[in-house]
């Protein structure tokens, strides 16, 4: 077991993970631990929280396309206060793996206030700064598209914490490597990508948008080649570790992302089509590496 653990262990900027598999924010909850053991997961990433409660977008919020999933959740969440008083308490109690809190703000000040609030609580190993959600107007994506704004924001946040500081990037930009470099320069200790692509679907019989907001977030199988390309571009542009996600459904998919330069990967939409994706990816990677007598670190970034 010792040996097994080390084959799949990996590092983010400041923390080591026993497993290179994380959950993608917003697609996972402790409910899934009814299906497999916690230890399979390297760390637990919360759904993105905001300072104030957010009601989210009206329904319908979901639509499955031919090759993926559209969502228009709009970051519905009970807000920081409720998180600190309810969820954090439960999670800290329950989790045996590192907890990473994903959060987002409408302004730089909001991000700062949230980080300050979270810093006062123990049991948090790191943050995922969501500057990339396409489903909200003020929050999120505006920040994620401008390198200067990203640099300024991350620099302020980095000064306030010694914890892992992951910046989650949007794929809907001209040059993701530039944004990643800005985050790195600002003090991010790792980068995660990709959040959802812009997507849309229309009911051809009625002409109605399938979801309550026309342009929403696209995830799943169909975005895998895009996610892989952006992971490759980003991993080559920065020195900090990259956590990659976007359409990963199998251990073979996961291998592609490691080869492209990811130090860890995350499973999102695949949790829905197969709630056992995470343990299956874990077992598949383990078999692959064992058979070849390799450690994960031997293949990270080794695409040729």
């Amino acid at each position, binding site marked *: 077991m010792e040996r097994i653990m080390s084959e799949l262990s990996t590092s983010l900027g400041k923390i080591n993970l026993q497993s290179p598999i994380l959950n993608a924010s917003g697609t996972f909850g402790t409910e899934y631990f009814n299906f497999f053991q916690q230890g399979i997961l390297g760390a637990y990433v919360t759904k993105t929280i905001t300072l104030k409660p957010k009601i989210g977008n*009206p329904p319908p*919020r*979901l*639509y*499955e396309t031919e090759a993926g999933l559209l969502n228009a959740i709009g970051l519905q969440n009970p807000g920081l206060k409720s998180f600190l008083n309810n969820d954090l308490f439960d999670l800290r109690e329950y989790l045996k793996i590192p907890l990473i809190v994903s959060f987002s703000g409408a302004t730089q000040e909001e991000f700062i206030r949230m980080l300050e609030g979270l810093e006062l609580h123990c049991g948090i190993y790191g943050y995922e700064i969501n500057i990339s959600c396409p489903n909200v107007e003020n929050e999120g994506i505006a920040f994620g598209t401008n390198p200067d704004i990203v640099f300024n924001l991350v620099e302020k946040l980095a000064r306030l914490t010694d914890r892992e500081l992951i910046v989650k990037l949007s794929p809907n930009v001209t040059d993701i490597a530039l944004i990643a470099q800005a985050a790195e320069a600002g003090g991010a200790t790792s980068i995660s990508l990709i959040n959802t692509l812009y997507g849309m679907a229309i009911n051809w019989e009625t002409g109605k948008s399938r979801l309550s907001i026309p342009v929403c977030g696209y995830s799943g199988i169909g975005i895998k080649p895009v996610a892989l390309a952006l992971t490759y571009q980003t991993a080559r542009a920065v020195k900090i570790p990259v956590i990659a996600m976007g359409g990963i459904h199998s251990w073979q998919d996961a291998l592609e992302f490691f080869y492209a330069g990811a130090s860890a990967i995350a499973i999102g939409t695949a949790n*829905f089509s197969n*709630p*056992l994706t995470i343990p299956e990816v874990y077992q598949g990677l383990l078999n692959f590496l064992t058979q070849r007598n390799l450690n994960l670190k031997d293949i990270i970034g080794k695409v040729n």
Partner: protein
Amino acid sequence: MQYKILPVEKIEKIRTNYIQITIKDEDFASQCNPGNFFQIKADITSQCRRLFKPISVYNIEEDSISFLIKVIGGGTRALAALKTGDKLKIYGPLGNAFPLRQDSKILMVSGGTGYPPLAFLKKRLDSSNNILFLHGGASKDDVFPCDCSYTIDGSFGNKGIVTKDIADLLKKESFDCIYSCGPVNMLKTLAQIVAPIPHYVSMEAYMACGVGVCYGCVIPTNEGYLRVCYDGPIFEAEKILWKEL
């Protein structure tokens, strides 16, 4: 809640486009209450990256659980193509359950695929209750055993929508409680007619996770957007903001 891969015990075609699938599992059978549902899908390659489909518990007999499913799109078509012994993937039971009344006069109203959860509920309500069960559908192929049937095209039972006589009925009889499930427009109409009688509706929504984590299946309520899969599928009708639906 558990995840399992189970063989189909029995699969039957019912009328033109419903199927009844029965599986056998002691854990599942003992955990289900009326209103609960499962996420299920056919274990075949073309489905491997598709979502699970929420299906209510229709009947439980000893270790057997039955589902009554209308075939409407890819997921249900794949289920309909299963044969005895083929595998299906399933997790649950999910969601909350109908509160079980006693010594009450109860009106049950279902439309279309809203039938299965009410049929199961009826079996679990004890004999201290007095139940009237109305069910409606588009045509005779959508009608199932109940006290009074309605079809839009008049091909079976009363012609018209299932809610059409309820206002009159309530003038004549009083009910302690209403249970309903069906298309949202039917529920909306019903909610208006029967208020303020306690009214529990089982809601439907497009789902991804089915376990409450994705917030994709919400409906508008006076407590904000609540998840059908987790906070529901059973809601008190008066909580729902029908106008926004």
